[in-house]
């Protein structure tokens, strides 16, 4: 049973790392700041979500697991908000 959990953790965290990697590739390769924002906000949020998912079975208690989800939600909200704010500033700067 615990081996199964370990396998699940490993797979989810690995997938999360992959999305962080892909987001970083996008950050470097995409042509302008607006498209780079897409790469960061989407890929990194999914990456962090998968890492949190992979850590859930390893949490000490239900409360600790809930705390991990809370961290993900806070990062999600602040990341998505800042992406919109930067996008807005860039759009206004283009005019």
């Amino acid at each position, binding site marked *: 049973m615990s081996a199964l959990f370990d396998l699940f953790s490993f797979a989810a965290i690995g997938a999360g790392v992959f999305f962080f990697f892909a987001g970083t590739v996008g950050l470097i390769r995409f042509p302008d700041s607006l498209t780079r924002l897409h790469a960061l906000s989407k890929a990194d949020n999914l990456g962090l979500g998968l890492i949190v998912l992979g850590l859930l079975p390893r949490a000490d208690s239900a409360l600790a697991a*809930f705390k991990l989800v809370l961290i993900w939600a806070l990062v999600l909200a602040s990341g998505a908000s800042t992406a919109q704010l930067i996008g807005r500033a860039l759009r206004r700067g283009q005019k």
Partner: protein
Amino acid sequence: MIPPAPFDTKAAAARLAFFFALWLTIAGWTAKDVPVGLAAAAGAVWISLKFLPPGDARFRPVQLIALAARFLSASLIAGFDVARRALAKRPDLDPGFVSCPIGLPSGAARDAFLLLQSLQPGTLPTGVEGGSALVHALDVSQPVAAAFAAEEGHFRKAFGHE
């Protein structure tokens, strides 16, 4: 002077329960910390009532869960979408702004909807001007505006903004 809004006991109680649950999540359950937790939760309720007065949103659990499921699957697709475009031999992009009409009135509900939209595949709202959200899209050949309108419908259903 604007008369202070009547104190909404039900909303305050619900928020107190939420913030106290949050305290327990962060601090864990220790009997001696409970009074501090309750005080902190009460402070948080005061701040949240001050900054975000209870609105007329009615939560519909079934539609809300459906919305959450849609959101999670959409963020999965969004991540894959961006990863595919980033790792393609040549970055697969056709970026541009799309003006999407938005029916939600300005306020927390509209901001929350735009927050969710910013995690949808290939779209990033960059503010609202004149009743339209200016959405930056990674690929303007996609039906961005139609998808945006459909998502707004789902969102309105879940929060009773009809």
